[in-house]
């Protein structure tokens, strides 16, 4: 039997790194784990998440578009209905990918797979776990956004090089939802509670000026919609797709920056109280 528990300098090096009380600067190990798990089992689920908005774009954009004809775009110019809803669907897809990863996936890992309990018995801290999981959600969001933008290009819906900025903007949207989603999931204990997530997501998807302009609503409903995160994402991507930037663009970006900061604070606080009781 070889000596199992001593003799390697690297293990001492790993012990003598600089550690924080909740963070060991090793989120990449959590990301590495996620990629390895995805490679071996999850890739079908990932694929379905990509096709969902594409199917919506084809059915609504091409099908409904034939009935609706051209509509007025963000800068007031005439654009096809498909070009109008495509950036909105991209925002929805960024939201869905991030929310799926940060709610259902995290819920399962937290309550059934006991994955985080295992991680937190190593030199990982809760902040490493939170950052790692959120970056995984963002990678997924990035993948979806890139694929969807490519589909838009193939369908001739991209008319300006500025539209490529939709990809990083989608990641920003995904970041906002992922950082909040994980914090909210930490409160959930049962599947019934998890259904509330869908209960919020579906109306947000349908009513956030995704398929028609905000102006169809009475004013007080408009205010409500404008308070919701998805509307800001839809508007941001729609503006980028037409290279029609206004001061409101900065407000949309700012909304997500605030959402990210608050979400991260919530998530790390919750992870700390959940796992370091």
């Amino acid at each position, binding site marked *: 039997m070889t000596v199992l*528990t001593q003799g390697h300098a690297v293990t001492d090096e*790993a012990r003598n790194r600089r*550690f924080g009380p909740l963070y060991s600067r090793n989120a990449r190990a959590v990301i590495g784990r996620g990629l390895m798990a995805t490679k071996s089992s999850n890739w079908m689920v990932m694929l379905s998440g990509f096709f969902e908005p594409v199917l919506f774009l084809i059915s609504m954009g091409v099908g409904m578009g034939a009935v609706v004809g051209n509509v007025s775009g963000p800068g007031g110019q005439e654009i096809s209905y498909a070009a109008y809803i495509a950036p909105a669907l991209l925002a929805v897809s960024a939201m869905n990918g991030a929310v799926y990863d940060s709610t259902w996936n995290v819920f399962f890992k937290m309550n059934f797979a006991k994955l985080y309990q*295992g991680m937190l*018995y190593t030199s990982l*801290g809760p902040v490493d776990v939170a950052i790692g999981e959120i970056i995984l959600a963002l990678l997924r969001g990035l993948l979806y956004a890139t694929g969807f933008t490519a589909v838009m290009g193939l369908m001739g819906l991209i008319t300006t090089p500025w539209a490529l900025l939709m990809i990083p903007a989608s990641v920003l949207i995904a970041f906002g939802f992922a950082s909040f989603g994980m914090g909210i999931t930490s409160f959930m204990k049962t599947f019934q509670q998890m259904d509330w997530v869908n209960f919020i997501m579906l109306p947000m998807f349908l009513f956030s000026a995704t398929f028609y302009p905000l102006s169809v609503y009475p004013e007080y409903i408009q205010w409500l919609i404008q308070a919701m995160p998805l509307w800001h994402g839809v508007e941001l991507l729609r503006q980028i797709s037409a290279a029609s930037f206004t001061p409101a663009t900065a407000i949309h970006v700012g909304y997500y920056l605030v959402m990210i900061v608050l979400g991260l604070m919530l998530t790390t606080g919750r992870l700390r109280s959940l796992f*370091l009781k």
Partner: protein
Amino acid sequence: MPAHETGPEKHKAPAAPQYVITAENLTKTYGDVIAVDGISFSVPAGESFGLLGPNGAGKSTTMKMIGGVSQRTSGNLTIMGLDPEQNGPEVRAHLGVVPQQDNLDEELKVRDNLLVYGRYFGLPMSYLKPKADELLEFAQLTDKAKSKVDALSGGMKRRLTIARSLINEPRILLLDEPTTGLDPQARHILWDRLFRLKEQGVTLILTTHYMDEAEQLCDRLIVVDKGRIMAEGSPAALIRDYSTREVLELRFGSERNASIGAELEGIGERLETLPDRVLIYTHDGEAALEEVSGRGLRPLTSLVRRSSLEDVFLRLTGRSLVD
């Protein structure tokens, strides 16, 4: 278990022993429930230290506090000179943890479980790959390297969890009821593996409610009940201090066990009546059995055995450890 029981750690003490764990008045409450009630102990490097007690005694809670994943309510705790609450990741870098319930990564294959776990400690792949193979061999799982985790038996999962806990070459190994739920053969394989680690100088901190496990593996242990330390010492010393050399177990049938006590009065040093049997503590079990027969009592079964930690626990708490 060696016969000399003079407590070698006592002689070492003046030479400033290096305590890897020190707990002083460690207390943990959940609301009104006191899970750990002011316990103090120190563990020198290389010792195999046990926490023995029934379910709910506070053993796992103590383990969680040592691992820095549970905050103490009051008291002091240092691991390798560090406070696990202030330096959680750093303290755990020194630890290997085998939790009560396996929490292997079911989405990863057996060998990948070891590699990924090693990455959590910030270890490089160039070290982890040969190390994982070495640990799989130690855990007798080499031919399962590419299997899925859920294809493993309970004993295999346990061995994989132990192998995983060794990936960072820890100085201290925390084992929370390592063999609960395993069949006897799997337990013996596991004990053998743990004994080898002990021989290599790893500090083992072990909770158990199995007497034989504590006697096999622990140099020293504390008996814990309701969050308090009832006794402390080596298994042999505890048996010597709290029990007799031998025990005579008599069964008169569940109807008569309770009422027979008075008729057995005076035999042996002490009498313990349990629902299913009567225990007579004595230095000479055979002589006591003759005396029982001499009084005209005919037990259904009788058994003379050496005293065990079970008897110590019964003496200290009036209750059995495992119902």
